[in-house]
């Protein structure tokens, strides 16, 4: 193994990337874990906003619908980087004001929580649109049937609408998840130690820019490709029981 690395001239890179202290591998992996935590949290938070927002847009009153339209339009027109800064300052300001009003001192907000809050709000705007389209694609007769049997609204949502819309929503949600993982890199600019920032710190203190940036790129790529496989499973599962288009033709 070492001989192969030696002949390829990669021994130095392997040493830099090793997991034990002289190498920076452990730092990169810690950054990756942080990135994934933030991406999971933000995706989940965004889905929650998206579900309620989609219901609000479809069945809400005129005021709620207009407010949601403003939210989705503004979030989708302003760069994520600017939104992250605004939401970050607003969030920390609000929490500090609340804590000082309650008599506590300044609170240090953990990077992961702040990242989830900031990216979740951004993701929410996109998931509203994805889920709204998916709910609209469910044949209305199915939801009406549930209502006609006297199913309460929450149960209708849980038992009928969500399972039926899953197959329509999965491609869009897969895309959103990929955006979430890539947007975590933007948090590097606010100073959270996720993968991209850890990489930059490692690269600038060892001057081995190519090694570290390529390694981080490979890690992101692995995450992307694995997510692709997982979402393909989920889509297959969500489509179970539906006639496939290909088999119809033969």
């Amino acid at each position, binding site marked *: 193994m070492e001989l192969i690395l030696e002949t390829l001239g990669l021994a130095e890179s392997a040493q830099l990337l090793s997991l034990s202290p002289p190498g920076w591998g452990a730092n990169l992996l810690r950054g990756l874990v942080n990135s994934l935590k933030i991406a999971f949290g933000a995706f989940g938070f965004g889905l929650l906003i998206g579900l309620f927002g989609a219901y609000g847009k479809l069945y809400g009153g*005129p*005021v709620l619908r*207009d407010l949601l339209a403003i939210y989705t339009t*503004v979030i*989708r*027109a*302003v*760069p*994520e*980087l*600017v*939104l992250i*800064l*605004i939401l970050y*300052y607003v969030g920390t300001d609000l929490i500090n004001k609340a804590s000082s009003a309650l008599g506590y001192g300044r609170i240090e907000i953990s990077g992961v929580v702040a990242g989830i809050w900031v990216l979740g709000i951004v993701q929410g705007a996109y998931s509203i649109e994805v889920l709204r389209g998916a709910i609209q694609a469910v044949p209305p007769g199915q939801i009406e049937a549930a209502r006609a049997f006297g199913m309460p609204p929450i149960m209708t949502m849980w038992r009928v609408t969500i399972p039926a819309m899953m197959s329509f929503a999965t491609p869009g949600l897969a895309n959103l998840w*990929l955006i979430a993982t*890539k*947007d*975590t*890199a*933007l948090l*590097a*600019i606010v100073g959270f130690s996720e993968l*991209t920032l850890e*990489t*930059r710190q490692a*690269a*600038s203190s060892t*001057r081995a*820019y*190519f090694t570290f*940036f*390529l390694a*981080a*790129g490979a890690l*992101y*790529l692995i995450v*992307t*490709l694995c997510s692709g496989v997982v979402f393909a499973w989920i889509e297959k599962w969500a489509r179970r029981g539906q006639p496939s288009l290909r088999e119809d033709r033969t």
Partner: protein
Amino acid sequence: MTTLKSLMVPHRIVMMLLFAALVLWCALSLRWDWIPKYAPLALEGLWTTIWILALTTVLGFLLAVPLGLAQAIGPWYLSIPARTFCTIIRGTPLLLQIWLLYYGLGSLFPQFPWIRSSELWPYLRQAWPYAVLALTLSYAGYEGEVMRGAFSGVAKGQLEAAKSFGMRRFTMFRRIWLPQAVRNVLPTLGGETILQLKATPLVATITVIDIYAVSSRVRSDTFIVYEPLLLLALVYMVIAGLITLAFKRFENQVAR
């Protein structure tokens, strides 16, 4: 399109009044005294943002056409590299790509004496060529995928008709295949261009002074946090609106 009549509903009038009050409050009680001092710099930054956006979308699109073609009809030795390129670009964060090019290439080039003595060196020492390169490659990666779908989506009969008239392959591509493919994806292109606009502030991290960098500078010089950011968000919303309008007009013209 929202018409005037649809705006004249009671709850919308109330909302507009509330919004006007909010704008008035912002104008009166927030600090805007820094604007005159930073206006020239901001205009320069705005210009940088716009030309970087325009240049990278045009170059990126020109690169996306061969990428899409290679994936749609190319032989395997062209389609596999094209697909790999698109996967890599779409699978890694743009910020990482920008930093890889700027810090990576930027630290590599000075080691070669012939690059340092070449005529390109004054440019290679600046940040913007790396920003343009990274954004172009990114746009090409995303658009290559879109164009692949567009090229395979053009009706086969059209191409067969052209062939049966004895049209040469390049003429056929220029006159029939490309225009139809582009027309079909114009709405997607508009959306992607807005995504590209939203990617431009990342170049501020490698010392290109765009409009975002100007707002950061105001923030660090004067310690005013919200006002520059709000104005910045407004500027981006206006540019995004203009792009949407331009693409709509273009679509209407083409659809005739």
